[in-house]
């Protein structure tokens, strides 16, 4: 396709699909390289932003999604009852925080940090698609390693895990060497 047409073709595709679309799939549909596709996406994003449109293109990891701008939420909610994403329980959020900040992490590592069994919250996060199995740890029992997904990014409205605030630095507590290594 013509490169100049690409941004608006992307707009049409994202509009129709509703859900987040993976960049490689988008590139395939357009018959463009992934680099050309991302370039077109950036053009479109700029166009949207310069006009403060009602909708915006957001990137979640490797996925792109067309969504409303947060500032128009009151008007949208006044007329429609949009399907709200469910918020996570405290237990699930804690489990997710440990995995997000120390990924990839095993269930055992999460349980060590939280001090409770985490079977249920890990299952629930897997089911919601917020975490995924990414391999096995080379350790006794070869436990499954978990990491966050692009859907996790979408749930929290960030493009990359690095956009999460850094782990809070606690004053007065000596850092211990037996903690799981963290990569915030």
């Amino acid at each position, binding site marked *: 396709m013509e490169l100049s047409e690409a941004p608006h073709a992307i707009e049409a595709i994202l*509009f*129709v*699909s*509703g*859900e987040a679309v993976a960049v490689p799939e988008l590139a395939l549909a357009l018959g463009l390289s992934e680099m050309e596709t991302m370039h077109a996406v950036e053009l479109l994003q700029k166009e949207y932003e310069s006009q403060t449109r009602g909708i915006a293109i*957001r990137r979640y990891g490797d996925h792109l*999604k*067309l*969504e*409303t*701008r*947060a500032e128009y*939420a009151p008007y*949208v909610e006044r007329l429609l009852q*949009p399907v*709200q*994403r469910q*918020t*996570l329980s*405290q*237990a699930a*959020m*804690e489990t*997710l*925080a*440990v995995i*997000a*900040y120390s990924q990839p992490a095993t269930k055992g590592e999460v349980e*060590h*940090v*939280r*001090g*409770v*069994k985490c079977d249920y919250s890990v299952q629930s996060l897997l089911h919601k698609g917020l975490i995924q199995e990414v391999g096995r740890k080379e350790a006794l029992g070869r436990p499954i390693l978990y990491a966050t997904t692009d859907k996790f990014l*979408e*749930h*929290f*409205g*960030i493009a990359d895990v690095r956009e*999460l*605030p850094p*782990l*809070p630095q*606690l004053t*007065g*507590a*000596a*850092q*211990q060497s*037996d*903690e*799981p290594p963290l990569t915030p």
Partner: protein
Amino acid sequence: MGIHIRLKQFDGPLDLLLHLIGKAKIDIKDVFVSEITEQFIEVVRSAEDFDLELASEFIAMAALLVEIKSRALLPKPPKTEEEEDPEQALIARLTAYKQFKESAQNMAEFEQNALQIFGKLPEEIPLPPPTLELDGLTLEALWLALRRVAERKPKEDRQVDYRLRDIRRDCYTVESCMEVIQSRLSVGEIPFEELFCSVPGREEVVTLFIALLELLKLGKVYVTQCEALERIILHPGRRQGFGIE
């Protein structure tokens, strides 16, 4: 302190410990010079929803706290390099847990902000039938495939003309069977079962029967049977009138 506490409201013993530390307004590292151990045991002991399933992790923590506290009363053994100080280990766990707990709260804020963003449902689009692209379809590949087939066949078959013909000549045809029946009947009536040889093949039976039906239709043969399950007799020629012959 208020004892009306349910264990369920805490995500495990570390959560309860942090809660007590927060309430006492002390630093994590001061946990063992405080009354936290006693408070922890009291909470677990008098919990309204005490059941072993839920409480086992709390009880294990209570045991650990008591162990650490009692160690402090004993003269300190000379420190060995590899031995882990359970007090320092627990303080480290509490510290790490507190960090993640705060991160979870930060993440909940992100989650709340994301709730202000709406997507839309996918459009319903009638799709054309899927297009299939086939790779490797070349005349050469086609030709080689045929040669492969030919090479697999036994040598004596090699000269086969690949223009396919009938594989096997039928031994019985309806026409030939019609002639057989008519010639048998030319000397007079015969019982139906004598039409067939002693050990007839399926093809023979089927073809002869079709031939017989054909002759009946053409009026060159007719059949009689005196009673049900009696012998069936074949007669040459067209049946005269009705009734049993």
